[in-house]
């Protein structure tokens, strides 16, 4: 989005993230239906389409859509089982929910003119801090005070243990921040860069380079969208494992 103004290019690469009410032009209340709402609902609809419509036949020999759903199911199921162990499988639906929301939001946001909910700090912060609080509470409920053993390296030299404990505590509290900013930052940066290249494409002289740049960044973003959903999910599994088995 670039416009010639007083002889110079003006980019507004962040305008794509503005939240707009879908109906009317009023202020955005907490319940207002906005462009963000629309794309979240589209993500939900896509998930329902793949997982409910796709598996409607319950076919032993799956259709294409059904096998996509089964592949994702198997992928996340195996991840939870491998990282958290058998007792982590109780939390599989929650982790599946997180993964699907992030995956579908990320990929739907790659459609031109769409909106990317996962680029909003508020959204990813709720996801990240939700995982953080859930895992911490679960850790104390499951293990009681023994959960604090997570911070106490019993196999480290005695002198180092308090220092390591301090570092571990800091890193534990940084987890949700990095967890959420990693996702939002990746998605936001990708979309902003795409917009900047699109702005340069308006200049005749550099437009071939700019369009090539858009293609290249778009390809990169296709990777990043999948990888970020995967990273968010596997980190959730790792944190969950810490809560279930705090002993190092």
């Amino acid at each position: 989005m670039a416009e010639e103004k007083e002889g110079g290019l003006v980019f507004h690469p962040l305008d794509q993230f503005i939240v707009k009410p879908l109906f009317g032009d009023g202020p955005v209340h907490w319940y207002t239906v906005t462009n963000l709402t629309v794309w979240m609902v589209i993500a939900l609809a896509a998930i329902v389409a793949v997982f409910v419509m796709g598996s409607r036949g319950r076919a032993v020999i799956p259709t294409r859509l059904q096998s996509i759903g089964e592949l994702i199911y198997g992928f996340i199921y195996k991840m939870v089982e491998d990282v958290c162990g058998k007792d982590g499988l109780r939390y599989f639906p929650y982790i599946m929910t997180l993964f699907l929301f992030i995956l579908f939001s990320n990929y739907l946001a790659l459609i031109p003119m769409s909106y990317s909910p996962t680029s909003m700090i508020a959204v990813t912060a709720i996801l990240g801090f939700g995982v953080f609080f859930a895992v911490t509470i679960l850790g104390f409920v499951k293990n009681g005070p023994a959960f604090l053993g997570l911070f106490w390296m019993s196999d480290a030299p005695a002198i180092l243990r308090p220092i390591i404990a301090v570092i571990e505590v800091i890193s534990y509290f940084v987890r949700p921040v990095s967890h959420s900013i990693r996702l939002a930052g990746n998605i936001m940066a990708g979309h902003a860069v795409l917009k900047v290249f699109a702005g340069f494409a308006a200049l005749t002289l550099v437009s071939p380079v700019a369009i090539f740049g858009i293609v290249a960044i778009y390809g990169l973003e296709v990777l990043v969208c999948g990888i970020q959903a995967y990273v968010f999910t596997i980190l959730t599994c790792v944190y969950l494992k810490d809560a279930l088995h705090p002993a190092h």
Partner: protein
Amino acid sequence: MATETTDVAGVCVDAGGSALGMPQLCADWMPNQIFWLLVTLIAIYFVMSRIALPRISAVLAERSGTITNDIAAAEELKNKAAEAEAAYDQALLDARAEAQKIVAEAKAEIQADLDVELQKADAQIAAKTAESEAAIGEIRAGAVKSVTAVAKDTAKELVAAMGGTADAKTITAAVTARMKG
């Protein structure tokens, strides 16, 4: 870039509709984002946990069951095939042994018949030989007698031609003596 804000657009958007600062950090919009995120997550969770995940896990379990059954059935069929092959081979061996036995029996029977026939033939040949020998002996005796008679007659005629006379007794004795010699 215009910077004055309007009440309509909110504090995060300028009059031209462009973002002021990062839209991500606009506190006015956060409750809205959080509310709709929670709605979406809860909806996804219910769809997943109530409908999709049980269904998919049932399908996967059914499939692995079907595959296990099919493999077991295939194994069974394979065993049956191996059994059938063994039975076939056994039948072939039996048939071959039977055939050999029959061949040997037939050979023995033929040999026995042959032996009997040979003996019969031998006996016949022996009888015929004896008969022939008797006939030959007779013929020979007959011939000797004839020779003696011819010799006596010839001797008598020779003696007569020489002008002598000889009685039959002398000539017979002389011929007999000659014929022995």
